[in-house]
């Protein structure tokens, strides 16, 4: 996992290494300075030697400056490295997501991809910076302080060497007790967020059923369990600080006691004792820091895992070795196609589908919810790969096309469609970057969108809010159709794309498509009989299988499902009309 993450360091490797290097040098300076300070006291102040004080003072200032320089440099490099690392991570993740197939996106889920790209990256960025600085700093500090203090007086150094394992074991004990609770707390936090989110989304339901108290109770229970767990975890954690103090104070007192005896026995100077005490504090501090880093790492580990989840996910749709770059015509053929989202033969969504559509035909697909209409058409632009069998477009297996070529010739208007923040023009030009304004107007006329666009004060320059929230559902659908038309595709698939459009406009759109782009194969998934009855061919789907194919007239005579749908919708209307 770490290997995968570190791949994203790349050009910031230098800054990362320099951070560790400068931190090390800074620490060395920090360790030497107390030693010089001891000398200053012993040979300067103690001896009343003013010139020595000056001499040593200047040396000390120089060392402090060097330490400052290294410290500043390490700060700079750490910022460079961590911000850069985060940049690369985001970049790598975003690029990999662009390669994802629909199946990949479904697997990880859109919401999760977003959190991973935002919150998780930020977490890892701060952890990385912390690790670069602290995780190097503390051990280096520990080692150098030990060397220095043993240099001063080995006997006394054993005192705080004995304190280290006590502190280490104590901290380990605290952490290992706390960590599982924290893990649980974060899960409960997810639950809390979920309740709030569901509540926000379903506030109309809550209020309609007057369930405010019920929701409060639900929230209160989770809130309370967070309270309980968090208190428990932090109460455990509260032992760390006193433990640290205990070790610190104990070594201080022991040093004082034995130090005093040694000084009296002329084995130690006062200055040396002061330095030893300083080193003892530095060592214990660095251990404390190390334990903080440890906590930090365990917290960010979950984030790191989630990021690697994206980086390591391989798209299950790849271009074949020598792809085709032209699509001959808009004919479509399905050959014994089986399809399952889970790639599991026992959970097939489409079962032995055989289909032959000629170029330029208008084909309607009708069927109940869950009858796999959408699954069927998604195989044509190769949004998913078939589990078994073959799909041919223009006589060539879709797997042998260059994916981009295939998708620009097969335009699909998705059921759950999205407009992006930007002007109408910008949104439409997704279909064709270089389209002229005249072309934009033409496709909008076809999609019956020109009228309402002209009604906006800014016309084609009207700004669409994120998600298209400032246009109505029907308007959105028409803009999406226009956007797809701009691709001038050989095959156009409308997946229930006019459900929010009134019947009259719906009819106008279909007429425009029939008259203006006769060469394009048109596949229309619809729920209204009126939207499908003039098609060249109507496919009736039932639980993943093709139940019948035929024209309106044929199906009216032979197909039960079709008749049923027809009668349920047309009922009285037929008699009156």
């Amino acid at each position: 996992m770490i290997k995968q993450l570190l791949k994203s360091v790349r050009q910031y490797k230098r800054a990362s290494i320099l951070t560790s290097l400068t931190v090390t040098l800074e620490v060395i300076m920090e360790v030497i300075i107390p030693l010089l300070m001891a000398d200053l006291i012993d040979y300067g102040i103690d001896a009343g030697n003013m010139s020595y004080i000056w001499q040593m003072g200047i040396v000390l200032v120089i060392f402090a400056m060097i330490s400052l320089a290294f410290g500043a440099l390490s700060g700079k490099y750490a910022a460079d490295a961590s911000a850069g690392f985060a940049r690369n991570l985001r970049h790598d993740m975003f690029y990999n997501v662009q390669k994802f197939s629909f199946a990949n996106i479904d697997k990880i889920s859109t919401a999760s991809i977003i959190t991973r790209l935002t919150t998780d990256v930020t977490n890892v960025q701060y952890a990385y910076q912390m690790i670069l600085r602290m995780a190097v700093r503390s051990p280096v500090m520990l080692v150098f302080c030990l060397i220095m203090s043993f240099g001063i007086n080995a006997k006394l150094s054993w005192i705080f060497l004995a304190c280290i394992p006590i502190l280490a074991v104590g901290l380990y004990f605290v952490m290992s007790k706390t960590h599982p609770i924290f893990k649980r707390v974060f899960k409960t936090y997810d639950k809390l967020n979920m309740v709030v989110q569901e509540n926000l989304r379903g506030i109309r339901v809550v209020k309609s059923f007057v369930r405010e108290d019920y929701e409060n109770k639900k929230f209160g229970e989770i809130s309370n369990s967070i309270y309980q767990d968090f208190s428990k975890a932090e109460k455990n954690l509260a032992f760390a600080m006193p433990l640290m103090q205990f070790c610190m104070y104990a070594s201080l007192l022991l040093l004082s006691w034995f130090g005093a005896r040694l000084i009296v026995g002329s084995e130690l100077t006062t200055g040396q004792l002061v330095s030893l005490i300083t080193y003892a504090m530095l060592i214990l501090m660095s251990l404390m820091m190390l334990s903080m880093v440890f906590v930090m790492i365990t917290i960010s580990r979950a984030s790191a895992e989630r990021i690697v989840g994206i980086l390591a996910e391989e798209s299950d749709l790849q271009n074949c070795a020598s792809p085709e770059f032209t699509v001959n015509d808009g004919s479509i053929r399905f050959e014994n196609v089986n399809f399952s989202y889970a790639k599991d033969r026992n959970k097939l969504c489409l079962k032995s589908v055989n289909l032959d559509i000629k170029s330029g035909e208008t084909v309607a697909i009708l069927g109940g919810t869950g009858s796999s209409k959408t699954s069927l058409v998604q195989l044509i632009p190769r949004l998913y790969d078939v589990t078994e069998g073959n799909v041919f477009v223009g006589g060539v297996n879709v797997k042998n096309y260059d994916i981009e070529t295939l998708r620009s010739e097969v335009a699909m208007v998705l059921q759950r469609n999205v407009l992006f923040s930007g002007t109408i023009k910008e949104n439409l030009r997704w279909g064709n970057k270089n389209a002229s304004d005249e072309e934009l107007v033409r496709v909008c006329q076809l999609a019956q969108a020109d009228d309402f666009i002209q009604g906006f004060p800014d016309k084609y320059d009207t700004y669409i809010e994120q998600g298209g929230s400032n246009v109505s559902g029907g308007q959105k659908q028409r803009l999406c159709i226009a956007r797809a038309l701009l691709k001038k595709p050989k095959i156009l698939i409308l997946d229930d794309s006019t459900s929010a459009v009134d019947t009259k406009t719906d009819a106008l759109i279909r007429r425009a498509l029939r008259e203006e782009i006769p060469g394009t194969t048109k596949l229309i998934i619809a729920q209204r009989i009126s939207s499908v009855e003039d098609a060249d061919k109507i496919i009736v789907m039932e639980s993943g299988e093709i139940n019948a194919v035929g024209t309106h007239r044929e199906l009216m005579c032979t197909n039960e499902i079709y008749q049923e749908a027809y009668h349920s919708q047309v009922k009285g209307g037929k008699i009156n009309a």
Partner: protein
Amino acid sequence: MHKGAPMKMPRKKVSFSTIKRLMSYITHYKLQFSLVLVAIILSTAAGVAGSLFLKILIDDYIEPLLLDANPLFSGLFTAIVIMGGIYMVGILATLFYNRVMVVIAQGVLKKIRDEMFAHMQMLPIKYFDTHSHGDIMSHYTNDTDTLRQMISQSIPQMFSAVITIVAVFFAMLYMSVWLTLFVLIFIFFQLQVTKSIVGKSGKYFVKQQAALGKVNGYIEEMINGQKVVKVFCRERQAEEDFDRLNDALCEHATAANKFANILMPIMANLGNLQYVLLAIVGGALAISGLPNISLAGSGTLTLGMIASFLNLSKNFSQPISQVSNQFNMVVMALAGAERIFKLMDKESETDNGYVTLVNAKYEEGVLTETKKNTDLWAWKHPHRDGTVTYTELKGEVRFYNVDFGYAEDKTVLNNITLYAEPSQKLAFVGATGAGKTTITNLINRFYDIADGKIRYDGIDIKKIKKDDLRHSLGVVLQDVNLFTGTVMENIRYGKLDATDNEVYEAARLANADDFIRRLPDGYNMVLQGNGGSLSQGQRQLISIARAAVADPPVMILDEATSSIDTRTETIVQKGMDSLMQGRTVFIIAHRLSSVQNSDAIIVLEQGRIIERGNHEKLIAEKGKYYQLYTGAFELE
């Protein structure tokens, strides 16, 4: 526990009232909090005593012992034991306040969270329609998180730092006024440096936040539309745009963190510089034997004093930089608290209703209230003169000249007058934005009308208690919202005390029983993520069953079938038909086929009623409805 969340930069000013209000939550734990303060004082005092101990050790014990030919260590031993006792008290005090503070912090947070959620429930629908859910969510996540850090960490640390500063200051004065003065001057200089660096860093943090917002916004939009990106092969374009934003973020983040990172070594080494200068000044003073003035009186500086003073001076500058570090955190947390309080101060739904819904029975032809659970309900209407009248709940709804607009200057409904007799079915037809949903929003008082009157069973709905009004109305919406939980729990949402049999009955009525029984765990199947594992139609059926179990006399069906295919619709329609039996129903539908059998169809255009009547009448009139109706078949 620092979660490394992105820092939000403090706003300029934090109002004093926010602090006061926050304190009122903390002082709820008056006893514990005062004990914590005492413990902090003890713990800090032990720390300060420790730094003084070095002086005593050197001056009072080591130096005399050095001169003594036969040194006796018993005095030193006693001193160390005493010191050990002081330290022990300090350690225990630290443990105590850390543990108690956790309870206070978590308790305060829980209270704030619960109050915030409870208040949120009370807010009018308008609040939810006009605020982004992400923003509201952040009150529960970011804002409470910074608040937690502040209460459990920053407050004790700052308090302890302030005490240390004061204690050390006097300790320093106790030793030497001159050297203290010198330290003060140096600290002043140090603070200036800190201020300028923090200011610079702050500037870049603001930029970083803005850039981060842009990147996150872009990610959200693109990933949400990822399937569209793929269909249009826009991957490369998306990557290019993303890189641009990402690079800008990297640049600002580097700058911001650089300044923040540099602060620590600068502070540390300024401390070192101060140490050296102090040694030189102190040394010069000691050697030249200049008179020293201190709180203890005047005399000369001793070696032990300087060593000790040097140690003290470090203890003085450390808490100062600690406070300046914590200060940002506190300001951030207070800004978060302010946002939370703002939500809590939002005016809740006004409800001046006094007419309530009660169980009733007929006694000798007179309607009276009863505690018993009857199937008969009545409006209890207390009058100003003290009398109480009871009106049977029937479900008659009348609008009289109603005007309404979501914003004051833009009316959405104009002069709407309509009536629905009990058990009548009323349908609304019209284009998007004609005001169909708005009418239903007014009946259950999600929004209040600007002008006119709405009467329910003859009572002005403004007089009816909102909860009771809503209890008497059932709603099925186009966007189905299910909650995480079992199917059973979801249906029971309509009537919390419904027995299992009542739930089955409601599901049967809604035509949902069949498919629920075929689910892997039947009624006990756990639904997650708004019932994502179910089809649109199945979810709608559950929501209909949910309304059915509540068994209200009036139902509002808002586009309940528009996103379902026609085959499923037939099934759902059957469920709805049985649900509509014997109830007053307001129905909004896209498909005219589902409204044909209404008692009255109301055609709306731009907030006005342009046609009304039953199907036959409207067809005969050959108006808008006729056009709409025939439009569906014009291709024949």
